[in-house]
């Protein structure tokens, strides 16, 4: 008791690192045809903010500079042809009064998916849709992938009107209770991703995968196994009818039919892309690092002179449409 009474806390304010300078923060995604770059100026917490009116972006394929076009707040560098896998791509961003930021990666091509399928399975008490994606080879250490799943619903209402809904899904895993106890959240990394930007405001999950997620060449998961309405069938997932002001039901909101399609975007990611996205996810745990309890593993960047990442992605898309009897 005495000890507890003695352990009273006390606040100690302290200054942050002084002399911090604004830096260029760039998110650059390298593809087989070209590069998307979104450069921004980030302000220091412990120094003075500055406004920089414009930034210059250069893109290099090996030692050859490629043309760059600006589209609003991002830039696109085009090789003008399909680039071979493994070519070195460098991005350089300059701004007046700012240190020049540079980063590089190597081109990766889209993964070769040789088979994809789904099947109904009964796992314990859960009836799930298990999806299998098979690549042309078993991924090795240092090979990284990502997956996005979009559900498109077309709903027809009682008055004949139709509306489309888009839902972002994530791969599901049915874990036993014991596996849940040992669950390392770093094995289930999901980051916000809107095409080439990471960490934006809208949540569009990209799930990161490494070789340890694969069983040989095959990656298996359950289609949102945590969402029981998906598992129990499409009829249950029709939107609830809205209630009008007078308590009656508007016929334009009574659903009568729904058609569903699942789009799968399967990405091959360069190590830089993977490490950066993983660090972004792990920054959710930064308060524990601040307490000195865990390693600070959320600061990854391959941009010298600035911050951010230059990473490569190659993507392939396929879709699955459930048939009525399957559901």
């Amino acid at each position, binding site marked *: 008791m005495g*000890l507890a009474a003695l352990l009273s806390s006390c606040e100690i304010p302290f200054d942050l*690192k002084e002399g911090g300078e604004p830096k260029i923060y760039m998110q650059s995604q390298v593809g087989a045809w070209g590069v998307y770059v979104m450069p921004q100026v980030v302000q220091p917490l412990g120094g003075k903010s500055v406004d920089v009116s414009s930034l210059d972006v250069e893109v290099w394929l090996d030692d050859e500079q490629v043309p760059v076009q600006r589209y609003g707040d991002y830039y696109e560098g085009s090789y003008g042809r399909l680039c071979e896998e493994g070519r070195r791509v460098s991005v350089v961003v300059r701004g007046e009064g700012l240190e020049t930021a540079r980063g590089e990666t190597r081109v990766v091509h889209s993964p070769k998916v040789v088979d994809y399928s789904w099947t109904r399975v009964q796992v314990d008490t859960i009836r799930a849709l298990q999806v299998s994606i098979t690549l042309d080879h078993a991924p090795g250490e240092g090979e990284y992938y990502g997956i996005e799943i979009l559900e498109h619903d077309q709903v027809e209402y009682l008055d004949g009107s139709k509306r489309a809904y888009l839902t972002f899904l994530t791969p599901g895993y049915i874990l036993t209770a014991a596996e849940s106890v040992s669950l390392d959240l770093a094995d289930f990394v999901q980051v916000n991703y809107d095409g080439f930007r990471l960490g934006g405001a809208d949540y569009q999950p990209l799930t990161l995968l490494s070789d340890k997620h694969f069983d040989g060449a095959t990656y298996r998961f359950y289609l949102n196994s945590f969402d029981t309405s998906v598992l129990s069938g499409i009829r249950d997932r029709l939107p609830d009818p809205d209630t009008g002001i007078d308590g009656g039901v508007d016929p334009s909101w009574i659903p009568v039919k729904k058609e569903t399609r699942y789009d799968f975007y399967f990405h091959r990611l360069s190590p830089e892309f993977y490490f950066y996205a993983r660090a972004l996810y792990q*920054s959710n745990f930064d308060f524990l690092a*601040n307490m*000195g309890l865990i*390693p600070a593993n959320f600061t990854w960047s391959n941009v010298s002179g600035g911050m951010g990442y230059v990473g490569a992605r190659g993507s392939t898309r396929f879709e699955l449409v459930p048939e009525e009897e399957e559901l």
Partner: protein
Amino acid sequence: MKRLLLIGGLLGAVWSAGAQELRDTLEASRVSVIREKMRNTTQTGLMRIESKQLTSGMAVFGSPDVIKKLQMLPGVAAGNELMSGLYVHGGDGNDNLFLLDGVPLYNITHFGGLFSSFNTDVIDNLDFYKSGFPARYGGRMSSVVDVQTREGNLEKYHGSASLGLIDGRLQVEGPVVKGKSSFNLGLRRSWMDLVTIPAIMYANRRNGTDQTVGGGYAMWDVNARFTHHFSPQHSLNACFYTGADDLHASMEDSDAKMRIGVNWGSLTGSVADEYQFSKKLRARNLLYYTQSTSDTGYRFEIGDGDTQTVMNMDDSDISYVREIGLGSHWDWYPNSFNHVRFGASAQYHWYHSGRSFSSSTVQGSTVLREASDSESQGYRSFEPAIYAEDEFFLRYNLTLNAGIRLAFFATPGKIWPSIEPRAAFKWLITRDISAKISYTRMSQFAHLVAALYMDLPSNSWMPSTAAARPMVSDQLAGGLYTSFGPFTLNLEGWYKTMDHILVYNGSNTFVPPITEWEKSFAEGKGRSYGLELEATYEKGPLTLSAYYTLSWSQRYFEAIYGSWFPDRNDNRHKVNLVASWHFARRWELFANWNYHSGNRITFPSHYLEENGSRRYLYDQPYNTALPDYHRLDVGLDFSTAFRNGHVLKFNLSVYNAYNHLNASLAFLETKEDGSFTGMAYGLVPIIPTLTVTYRF
């Protein structure tokens, strides 16, 4: 001619004195009463601490603490306040070799690191190596803490009993067969649970509901040593140590039962046979067993009373490392100028980490749902090693200790060899000044698998595997060492590199991985360099010491950051001032002042305005230093002797005497004007402790 003879005679005298000094120093490894001066030893980075230094002075919570003594030494970072962290020359804290009577200890703390496992009542001395490791030591990268317990008194029974703020201690020693055999027994136990358990029982009776709660914490350890002298040349030592922590809590009412239990500890036993064949040759053969175990479990039973539906959940985590070792260590003096040590050792290790979970839902006698799962990972490994080192005079004032250690680590699917050269060179510039330089390579085949930087029972040790390479350090150290009358002044520098070090790179922040644990760790490297200054004045009743360290410690992990970054214990400056004054026959005063640059944390460095909100970005790991740390500890001893020779001693220790709350953790705060500041929180205030010791 006379002049030549005179010079030759003087050189011979100095040489003989040097040789005798060497012999004295070597003997000091067995005879603890000789206080080693850094100037005399060939090794760099060695400090010997004797029993009296360990048992006197500060005693936080009532027990003098070995690790907290070592934390004050230059070149050592302490990490989190009050914990038993020992980060030596930029090391990670799990890369120190702790030996108790020659037996490795894997778990050296109690109470999550608040206390160390070493009971100072039974310790004779300890040697602490930060660099210049002799070839006879191996298996860890950063330091060696070689603790020797004291042989019991061969003639009379003695002992002591102590009671402190948290624990009590009892030590007894004496002859088994007078003049031939003796024992030394030390017991230590916390006594908080003896108070809290009756208090909880009383509270349960008075709370007026059917709910009862229970719980308690206790830690204890036992040290025992038996020594038998067959002859002046032949002796046998049998040593035993066990220490454990037990934490349990429970809650029960008509609908639910919950029990949590955590138990962890160590057990060692050894037999050492020492035989002196002649004045030139002696041998020490050692057989030992050591283990470190932790067992964590919880159980829930939740029922609804009416329908007799009960949900049970059981979880159990058990991990251990066991080791059986055999060693033969020889000392050979072929002449006055050579001291050869050679030997061999072999260790067989069992590493195991397992987790099991089961749950069931039962209605009456019907099982509605049942699930169970378990995972475990076990390894067996074999670690043989041979070594040889020779300490010899090149000239009357030049000494070289050169050695090599060859070790192999056989783990499933892989054999890792390790060739470790060791060399230390001393130049006795004058009788009072020496210069030294050393180079050592050390390998480490054991890795601590932990998700948090804390000494938790859920942590486990795993060996190097085919996927996890042994960690290796290379260290160059050197300095100047002087001693003038009561003054000692030593200046030492080091440069150390560490390869294949591991850092947890997962996100489960409480339960470390078991299967394929290597994949949750990132491999990288570290480097550390710095200067240490040690100044001591020791005369009569007054001893004053000042230690200063200027150091850098950095890490490189490709999976975390693309360049070198500061280590979390990269404390640029460290100062320790230590004073003891025996100002009256019965009174002795102690004071320690500790200062170091703040530990490092990772704070956002930049922000991005995005859709009206701020997103924070980090420029590198451990980019911010917490406010500087400083603390004064004072202590006062009062001893009174009775006519029968027994002594009653009171020790009043005040930790953090001027109640400076040092930063333990920190957060980013936004001020009203939109600017930012760091906000740290201090947790440890002034802690006074009174310890009463009765010596008989």
